[in-house]
């Protein structure tokens, strides 16, 4: 059967014009698409409101289905656990005994670490958890890698906060709606994370490849030091991501680095944790009574701006010697207010 030919529907002027208008509109629409693309290029947040409305509307069924999916997965795991239950149980008992001792050691080390940090005057900014939630869906048909999280600004989630699972880093929050937020996953090509090798701290950065893996690129180009099986963790440089969160395990070497497999597979994680934005360790001499590591650079800033130049070298001189520097900031602090008061 011939398909209906409605190209030139007879001599009706109106019908012909209708077809012409259709084409005109189609080409205009394509051009409008280009303009919209330009708009979303220059203002990426332009359509975030519409997108978050769509995400909010789609969230309740997605939540339900995610719950079902997780339930089925858990149920299956429980059934599978019944096989070899006896031998597994004995093995786990032994492991618990071993781990208990290690745990005590680790606790002692943690305490020691805290003491040393306090001594150094480094305030450790642990990314405190903001919310715990599930990833409910993702941009599974697009070449960008986004996922939707079922908590939003109402639960305290803000733009830029890192998202991690128990096994490692997932990504960071890109847009927030009232009850949902969009997460830029690690495997997205736009997501660049500063990392280091867990073993010895070789610095690199990871960039998503779009297919669930990441490129680990060396900052220091030279002989490729990576080996298959190396674990990369976040370095905490530049903020946002807290340090020492596992990111990827190296799978294949390339010319200028390696290809890593993500440690936390977003598809396999049940709950993820949204953390506060990590700010690099702050230097606070008041807390410890010890000078910061870069006392030279810090001293002129903390001193009053218009103090007489004759006094300046006097206060800075003790700061330059590292051992005797301990009382220097404490001593200069009481001096500063009188200097400010004298001037007016």
């Amino acid at each position, binding site marked *: 059967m*011939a*398909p*209906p*030919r409605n*190209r030139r529907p007879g001599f009706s002027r109106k019908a012909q014009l209708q077809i012409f208008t*259709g*084409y005109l*509109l*189609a*080409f*205009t*629409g*394509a051009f*409008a*698409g*280009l*303009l*919209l*693309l*330009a*708009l*979303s*290029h220059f203002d*990426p947040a*332009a*359509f975030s409101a*519409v*997108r978050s409305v*769509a995400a909010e509307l*789609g969230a309740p*069924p*997605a939540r339900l*289905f*995610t719950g079902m*999916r997780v339930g089925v997965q858990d149920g299956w795991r429980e059934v599978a656990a019944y096989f070899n239950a006896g031998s597994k149980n004995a093995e786990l008992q032994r492991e618990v005994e071993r781990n208990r001792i290690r745990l005590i050691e680790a606790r002692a080390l943690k305490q020691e670490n805290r003491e040393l940090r306090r001594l150094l005057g480094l305030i450790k900014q642990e990314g405190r958890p903001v919310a715990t939630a599930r*990833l*409910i*869906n*993702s*941009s*599974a*048909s*697009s*070449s*960008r*890698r*986004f996922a939707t999280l079922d908590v939003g600004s109402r639960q305290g989630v803000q733009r830029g906060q890192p998202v991690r699972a128990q096994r490692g880093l997932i990504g960071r929050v890109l847009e927030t709606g009232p009850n949902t937020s969009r997460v830029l*996953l690690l*495997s*997205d*090509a*736009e997501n660049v994370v500063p990392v280091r090798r867990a073993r010895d701290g070789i610095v690199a950065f990871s960039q998503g*490849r*779009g*297919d*669930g893996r990441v490129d680990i690129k060396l900052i220091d180009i030279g002989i490729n030091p990576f080996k298959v099986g190396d674990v990369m963790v976040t370095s905490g440089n530049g903020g946002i991501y807290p340090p020492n969160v596992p990111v990827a395990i190296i799978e294949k070497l390339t010319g200028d680095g390696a290809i890593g497999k*993500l440690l936390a*597979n*977003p*598809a396999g994680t049940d709950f993820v944790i949204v953390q506060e934005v990590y700010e690099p360790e702050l230097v606070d001499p008041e807390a410890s009574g010890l000078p910061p590591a870069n006392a030279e650079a810090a001293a002129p800033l903390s001193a009053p701006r218009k103090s007489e130049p004759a006094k300046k070298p006097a206060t800075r001189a003790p700061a330059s010697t590292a051992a005797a520097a301990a009382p220097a900031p404490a001593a200069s602090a009481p001096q500063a207010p009188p200097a400010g008061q004298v001037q007016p």
Partner: protein
Amino acid sequence: MNAPYRARLNREPSAFRKAAVPIGSVLIGSMTPLLPIVASAPVLPPFGLVVLICWQLLRPGIWPVWAGVPFGMFDDIMSGQPVGSAVLLWSIILIALDLIEQRYIWRNYWQDWFIAALCLIFGLAGGLAINNFLVSDTRLSVLYPQMILAIFTYPLVLRLVARLDHIRLKR
């Protein structure tokens, strides 16, 4: 006497159903990213585009040529693509399908599948190219699984669309 036959003769399909079934099916196809699949690579075929192509090949002229604009807009909001990419690509695809319809009237099933495959590859690769142009560079090889899946989804979706067409024109 007349009444039982009256119900069966000279009936028209409901105008609402006639219009709403195709539109609704494309919109539902575009809503597949809302499924609870957290994928770390693009795997899901673009169902909205597949359904759109199926309707256009099965019932040429069912929509005006500019239908790609509203459908594309909806798809952009649902998928993670930058808004405007599907508007542009789907408009181009619908214009191309319209031109093909004018030039090659007699086509068989395999030719239709070939045309659909070309359109799907264009749609997916175009989306990737737009992303690469706007933000970052991702390799085309990332899309191969999705392309293959989309091409082999076409006959299944075509069956579904044909069934929907029966429902649409039911009297």
